[in-house]
């Protein structure tokens, strides 16, 4: 076996859809487009496709680089590539940017074909269900009737779960990582604080900031800072920053004294410079609304009654935003339906972010599960 390597130089593609998409909200997208990337080769009987669903701030650039000098490979590059746990010598991997995103797919930043102006605040509120329906159409457009696997972490795991509910015949395996069957009240609360930070930014203008030539950077920055705190564990933060002072002493003011503050400000600024606030609002709402058990009086097992896929469910011990207990709820519902499921609770210090880290045991789990899949 050759050493794990990168998928190399990649380029995004765009798929246009003219068949209207009915959304859960009742709105209809008359036409839309999705940007996506693919890695590896689709085999002759098209049985080796794996789709990657992204989380809140993710996109279609999952692996590889855009050119030799590119210092930022795709967001799950450590997992995907030749000889890596999700081996592109075996699988044809598809990454896409979800509807409502800000990386090229139809969303608030894109042009509304009806008005020829950016959608802005008028882009509909999209849900996990809508995303999965659009993803299924992307699979159609690639001639793929059935996915070998659907893979996602966090909000991406919710999409993976939804695939198995909405399209039981179209997905053989679901890898649901650091996810939950719905958000807890505490999680919705964090999202609400993030949204309030954005909405109350004077430069938000009801989401119409494009027309005012401004960006609600302050709001988005605070939203991201809050998010970052919740994605890390207390221990991980303590180990990385502790009470380290940037200049060795406190300065009796309100600028950066602690390294922790410096890190949060850096992350907030970076994010506010590259992400769209209207997209952030929609991604957090999609998280809040996902609740497949809602129509079944809260009975998740009943909600999963038609599911046929095999599952790998993985959680991380220090993840308090999507805690192991939430993954165990999914596992219980799968067991109640006598589905094939393996569940791993990975000992990890990095909190929710652990699902993106190249932890050896975690990657062995992924590697072995994916190796078992016949294509």
């Amino acid at each position, binding site marked *: 076996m050759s050493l794990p390597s990168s998928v190399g130089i990649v380029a995004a593609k765009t798929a246009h859809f003219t068949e209207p998409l009915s959304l859960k909200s009742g709105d209809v997208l008359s036409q839309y487009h999705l940007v996506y990337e693919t890695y590896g080769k689709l085999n002759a009987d098209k049985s080796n496709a794996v789709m990657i669903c992204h989380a809140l701030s993710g996109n279609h650039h999952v692996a590889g680089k855009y050119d030799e000098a590119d210092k930022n490979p795709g967001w799950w590059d450590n997992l995907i590539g030749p000889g890596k746990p999700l081996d592109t010598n075996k699988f044809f991997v598809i990454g896409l940017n979800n509807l409502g995103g800000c990386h090229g797919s139809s969303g608030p930043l894109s042009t509304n074909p009806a008005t020829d102006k950016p959608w802005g605040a008028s882009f509909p509120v999209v849900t996990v269900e809508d995303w999965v329906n659009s993803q299924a159409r992307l699979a159609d457009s690639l001639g793929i009737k059935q996915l070998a696997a659907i893979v996602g972490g966090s909000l991406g795991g919710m999409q993976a779960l939804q695939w198995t509910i909405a399209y039981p015949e179209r997905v053989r395996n679901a890898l649901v990582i650091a996810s939950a069957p719905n958000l807890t009240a505490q999680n919705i609360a964090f999202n609400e604080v993030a949204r309030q930070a954005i909405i109350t930014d004077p430069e938000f203008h009801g989401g119409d900031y494009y027309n005012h030539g401004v960006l609600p950077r302050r709001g988005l920055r605070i939203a991201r800072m809050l998010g970052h705190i919740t994605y890390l564990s207390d221990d991980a933060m303590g180990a990385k920053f502790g009470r380290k002072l940037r200049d060795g002493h406190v300065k009796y003011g309100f600028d950066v004294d602690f390294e922790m503050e410096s890190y949060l400000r850096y992350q907030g600024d970076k994010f506010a410079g590259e992400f769209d606030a209207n997209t952030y609002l929609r991604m957090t709402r999609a998280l809040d609304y996902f609740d497949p058990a809602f129509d079944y009086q809260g009975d998740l097992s009943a909600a999963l009654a038609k599911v046929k896929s095999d599952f790998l469910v993985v959680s991380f011990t220090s993840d308090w935003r999507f805690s192991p207990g939430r993954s*165990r709820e999914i596992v219980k519902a799968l*067991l*109640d339906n006598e589905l094939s499921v*393996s*569940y*791993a609770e990975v*000992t990890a210090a990095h909190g929710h972010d652990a699902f993106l880290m190249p932890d050896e*045991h975690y990657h062995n*789990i992924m590697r072995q599960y994916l190796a*078992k899949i016949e294509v």
Partner: protein
Amino acid sequence: MGNLEKNMAMSADARADFALIAQWVAPNAKVLDLGCGDGSLLSQLRKTHNIRGYGVEKDDANWLKAMNNGVDVIQMDLESGLSGFEAQSFDVVILSQTLQAVLNTEAIVHEMLRVGREVIVTFPNFGYWRHRIQIMTGNMPVSDNLPYQWYDTPNVHLCTINDFDDFCRKSNIKVQQRLVLTDKKEVHVMTNIRGNLAMYRLRSGQS
């Protein structure tokens, strides 16, 4: 449970109880194997009995081995109970050579009886004559079935066959069948002295 996994990694010889456990499992049964180790019992039962089943395993390395053996394996600590499993949702729940290493022994036996219509438990007999001799000569027993020193043993709830019979009577647990073995051979007389491995087939006494 400390180094319970050492128990799980016992040699194939020491897990000779597999074949005997298999006699008590009906074809096509739905089986839950607690402390499934590398999953070899379940993968064997799948071949010989066409069973459906899940393993429960706490240890990372064993978990990977079990998955590699094609077993659906749930990572959890038995000590936290079986709340992830519905009542009477399995035909058989198996706890093979692990009972003695469990802290909440009584609770776990009742949990197994809640989840399974039938329970199979195997454990080393502390009353085995070689163990008695070692105690009489002044040492904690060390044997093929109890391969640990007192300071590194995962076994915290060792019992004799008499003890376990008493426990079942007291707890209203019905012993359907009992098999006592020494070196893979069945023992019929003076079982609590001559046997080094006990196997029980249990049901809840109520009903």
